[in-house]
């Protein structure tokens, strides 16, 4: 069992899922938009990345095979290793494109659905997602149910697979950090206050001069764009994608992350993503190790996801890390140091670690008593 490989894969998936989780948190946790179509925007980003990257590579080499064909996959095998600069440019370009197109899709979908309340919004966005998936399943040019493969990894030119995966993991992690910081800034600014006012009481917010439909559309643009980035990352990481990855169950996995980890809290989103990613990867490993179980481990995992959602709502509705009402900038104006400075916090951590290590050592010395 390749521990390093498992860790790298876990952290990469964690980054991708965290981006999804943060994006849903912005929409649902902070603004109160019940977006049940997250998988759709995730999928749009993935397919944009796949289609555009394959098209670019093939066209530049003068080839015109259908994107889904075996010839393409074979050709991409060599093409993706020839020109490192091209790989990276295409990677960055498609990442941006995925953000924009998914974002616009989110913005557009918000328009008709903002005319309706949360129940209808949920249904409509969910249906939109299913619509896209069923369409893609039958749409030959993007490979139908088989999807597309041979997607050029940005670091395909790197020979050592572990190094390649490590580099990708770092990129994914960097993107996650950037998105996290952006989100933190957004929600602790007056705009964050705006988002929360829409969540708390749309009507009051409207009557206090806020253009509620526009705010929702903006947040959906940002959230969907982020999901698009996550999708693009997935496409490059896996090298192949198909429509059946982007099912409603995936959307609800993300919901479980937000609800369980803590809604309206970016750290909670990360925690939720961490737990779900762990369950996710663990079941992949278990499935690999035990081939003949009566029930597919994945089924158990999904049941756990469902239970997590229900149990959290029943017993701790705000999630593990609840909303931190005093993290916004306004609080710092009163000198009320609820938010501890970074230095102080590291000092605190260092002290605690020292204490713990001392305890461990003395326990060890005493012969493990």
């Amino acid at each position, binding site marked *: 069992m390749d521990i390093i490989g498992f860790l790298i894969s876990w952290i990469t998936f964690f980054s991708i899922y965290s981006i999804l989780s943060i994006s849903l948190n912005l929409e649902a946790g902070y603004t109160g938009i019940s977006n049940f179509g997250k998988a759709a925007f995730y999928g749009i980003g993935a397919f944009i990345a796949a289609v555009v990257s394959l098209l670019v590579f093939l066209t530049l080499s003068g080839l015109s095979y259908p994107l889904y064909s075996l010839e393409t996959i074979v050709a991409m095998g060599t093409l993706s290793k020839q020109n490192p600069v091209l790989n990276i440019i295409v990677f960055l370009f498609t990442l941006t494109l995925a953000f924009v197109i998914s974002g616009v899709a989110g913005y557009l979908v918000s328009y008709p659905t903002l005319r309706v309340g949360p129940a209808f919004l949920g249904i409509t966005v969910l249906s939109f997602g299913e619509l896209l998936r069923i369409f893609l399943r039958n749409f030959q040019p993007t490979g139908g149910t088989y999807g597309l493969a041979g997607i050029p990894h940005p670091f395909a030119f790197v020979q050592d697979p572990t190094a390649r995966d490590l580099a990708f993991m770092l990129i994914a992690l960097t993107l996650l950090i950037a998105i996290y910081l952006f989100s933190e800034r957004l929600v602790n600014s007056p705009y964050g206050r705006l988002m929360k006012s829409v969540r708390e*009481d749309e009507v009051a917010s*409207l009557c206090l001069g806020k253009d509620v439909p526009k705010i929702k559309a903006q947040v959906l643009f940002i959230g969907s764009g982020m999901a698009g980035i996550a999708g693009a990352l997935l496409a490059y990481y896996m090298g192949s994608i198909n429509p059946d990855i982007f099912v409603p169950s995936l959307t609800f996995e993300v919901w479980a992350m937000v609800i369980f980890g803590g809604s309206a809290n970016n750290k909670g989103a990360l925690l939720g993503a961490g737990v779900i990613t762990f369950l996710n990867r663990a079941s992949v490993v278990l499935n690999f190790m035990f081939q003949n179980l009566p029930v597919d481990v994945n089924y158990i995992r999904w049941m756990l996801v469902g239970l997590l959602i229900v149990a959290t709502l029943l017993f701790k509705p705000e999630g593990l890390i609840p909303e931190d*009402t005093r993290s916004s900038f306004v609080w710092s104006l009163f000198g009320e140091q609820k938010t501890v400075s970074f230095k102080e916090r590291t000092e605190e951590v260092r002290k605690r670690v020292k204490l713990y290590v001392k305890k461990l050592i003395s326990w060890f010395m005493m012969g493990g008593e």
Partner: protein
Amino acid sequence: MSVREGSVTGLIGPNGSGKTTLFNVISGFYPPDSGEVYFMGNKITGLNPNEIYNLGVIRTFQNPRLFPRLTVLENLLVAAGSRGERVTSSIAKRNWVDGEAKLVKKAYEIAKSVGLEGVERNIASDVSGAHMKLIETARSLMNSPKVLLVDEPAAGISYSAAKNLFNYLLKLKEDYGITLFIIEHRIDILMDYVDYVYVLHLGKLLSQGTPEEVLSDKKVREAYIGD
């Protein structure tokens, strides 16, 4: 019907006569069945509630609609506009930091003037009912209103508190030139403060005039007693 600039105009009538509905129409909540609403010479019928708010026509709710999980201070701050409320400028702190500090100061001042002190940092759902009313009132002042549509300000509070509130509203009018259009059930208090009164009954205008004229109008008495 018209409300003269700088006046304190009252709107009374038995229950169900349509007073709050009228406010809803003026503030853009409901479209009117017929007729138009004009503000300072411009037609505002058909505008969205948020647009009307930003023109300076601000209404309060009879039952305070606060944002439960926000602090009292944030409830007040939302009511004012801020540069930081635009997505693009919210990311860079320097765009809105100074504005925020000023807004917070303004919020504190207004809170103090309504008699709301010391609760600013509490979560809005934790404060008492009386405080909620005060917050609702304070909130309506945050965005420099030109006209205040006040819906039953004295509901549920004591006589002396109500008098204080009305004195305060009058002071606002003097200091800031705000026009007041007030729905109130407690006619005994209201009549001491208003210049002009409209009376609604069953959705129609029943009577209008100065407080004395309206109080002596037989139709008005019948409407109330027969109710």
